[in-house]
């Protein structure tokens, strides 16, 4: 009898210890002080990376064949649409090239520097197989080794996809813009009004808040990132198009629904913008001239 009671006590103790450990880990993670936890997750991501890539490589032909069988008509229609879009894009590339030349000439005329220099990008393959039914991120087959860091924006050819939330040496995870934790400063292009776009869950459109009641917003308008100071995103990344507008008299603002431009269900390749927000301006140091010609205004921030 006493032995049974001892066993029961030990069982309860073991269970309590495990539950307390779990709660402690949850607290650490929620407070964002899980450096060790992030490292452990990053190491696991790196360790399982080759397995994931191999599995994806093996499964891809079967997946493509299956998609071909079940959605042949859709693929055909999509193919025709893409051909049309490609022709349009080729025509607009010439026009954009001309505009860019004009812009550079004007900047040179007024002696101004380009405020938005081209942001370097890394193209990465999406591992097309979430590991959980409750997954809210996508995995990329590139990581810190390629310059990717947490917070960097990710886009596909169609528009903004999300931001990097975890980067290990060879892998990274991206939080999609439909995630409820996601928000970004956006601008409605036609009116120039700024708002805050928030995710509302997988498969659902974004909601843009803080758009004034007086602003006229029409469904079909384009929404881009505003890139205001401190934002994770640079200005001008395509977010999506307005699908619905609803006045919210209580808040004195409009609730604008935006459909993401990127097809988040069929991501194969994406580009990570190597853009880091809140990077301090490089300090301009006037150095004493050496033997050579005077060196004025050398930026010390580059490394």
């Amino acid at each position: 009898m006493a032995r049974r009671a001892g066993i029961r006590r030990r069982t309860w103790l073991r269970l309590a210890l495990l539950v307390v450990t779990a709660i402690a880990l949850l607290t650490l993670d929620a407070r964002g002080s899980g450096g060790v936890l992030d490292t452990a997750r990053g190491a696991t991501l790196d360790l399982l990376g080759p397995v994931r890539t191999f599995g994806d490589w093996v499964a891809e032909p079967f997946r493509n064949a299956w998609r071909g069988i079940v959605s042949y008509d859709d693929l055909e229609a999509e193919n025709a649409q893409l051909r049309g879009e490609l022709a349009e894009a080729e025509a607009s590339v010439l026009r954009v090239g001309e505009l860019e030349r004009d812009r550079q000439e004007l900047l040179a005329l007024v002696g101004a520097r380009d405020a938005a220099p081209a942001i370097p990008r890394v193209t990465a393959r999406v591992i097309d197989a979430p590991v959980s039914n409750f997954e809210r991120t996508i995995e990329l087959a590139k990581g810190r080794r390629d310059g990717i860091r947490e917070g960097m924006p990710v886009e596909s050819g169609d528009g903004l996809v999300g931001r990097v939330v975890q980067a290990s040496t060879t892998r990274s995870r991206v939080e999609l813009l439909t995630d409820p934790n996601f928000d970004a400063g956006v601008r409605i292009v036609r009116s120039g009004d700024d708002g805050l776009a928030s995710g509302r869950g997988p498969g659902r459109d974004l909601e843009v808040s803080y758009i004034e009641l007086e602003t006229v917003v029409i469904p079909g308008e384009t929404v881009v990132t505003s890139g205001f100071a401190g934002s994770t995103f640079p200005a001008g990344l395509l977010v999506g198009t307005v699908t619905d507008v609803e006045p919210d008299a209580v808040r004195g603002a409009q609730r604008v629904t935006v459909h993401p431009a990127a097809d988040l269900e069929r991501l194969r390749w994406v580009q990570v913008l190597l853009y880091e927000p809140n990077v301090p301006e490089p300090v301009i140091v006037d150095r004493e001239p050496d033997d050579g010609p005077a060196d004025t205004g050398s930026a010390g921030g580059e490394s």
Partner: protein
Amino acid sequence: MMAGAGPLARSTLVLAVAVVVHVGLLAHITPAGVIVDPLVLLAVAGGMMGGRSTGASFGGGCGLASDLILHTPFGMSLLVLTLVGYLSGAITEQIPSAGRLARAAIASLLAAGGIGIFAGAGWLMDLVYVTEAPIVRIAIVTGVASLLTNPLLERATRWALIIRPRISAASESTSRSG
């Protein structure tokens, strides 16, 4: 090579194999659009084979492995699968003489219940991506997967936890008394 290894080393090996199978194979096979999580099935089998105490520990190990590969809050899978392992052990202890088929059916219900516990934890933590997932469909597919794989998983956990088969233990005591 592992014949002389203790339960900890064997369990670690079983969990490592389960993780590799999960990310390399099962993530690509999605019946009804659902990914079967072998760690949930293992936690159930561990509890059923080892009882509530061992089940809690083995479930905890499954949870920790799961926490390392998922992006849900760290500790959530540890908490859920510890409870799943414990409950599996506690429930199975009430019906010690259940046959193989009955055990598979119980495992199936427990695995589906495990998904329910996960969803409940997600609801408590206000995780929209958990609560808005098709919980019923996930639970059904996980239950069916558990039903089909339970004999194999029981064998794996019996080996990992170094548990003698019940039949041979019974026959041993009979022969001793004889």
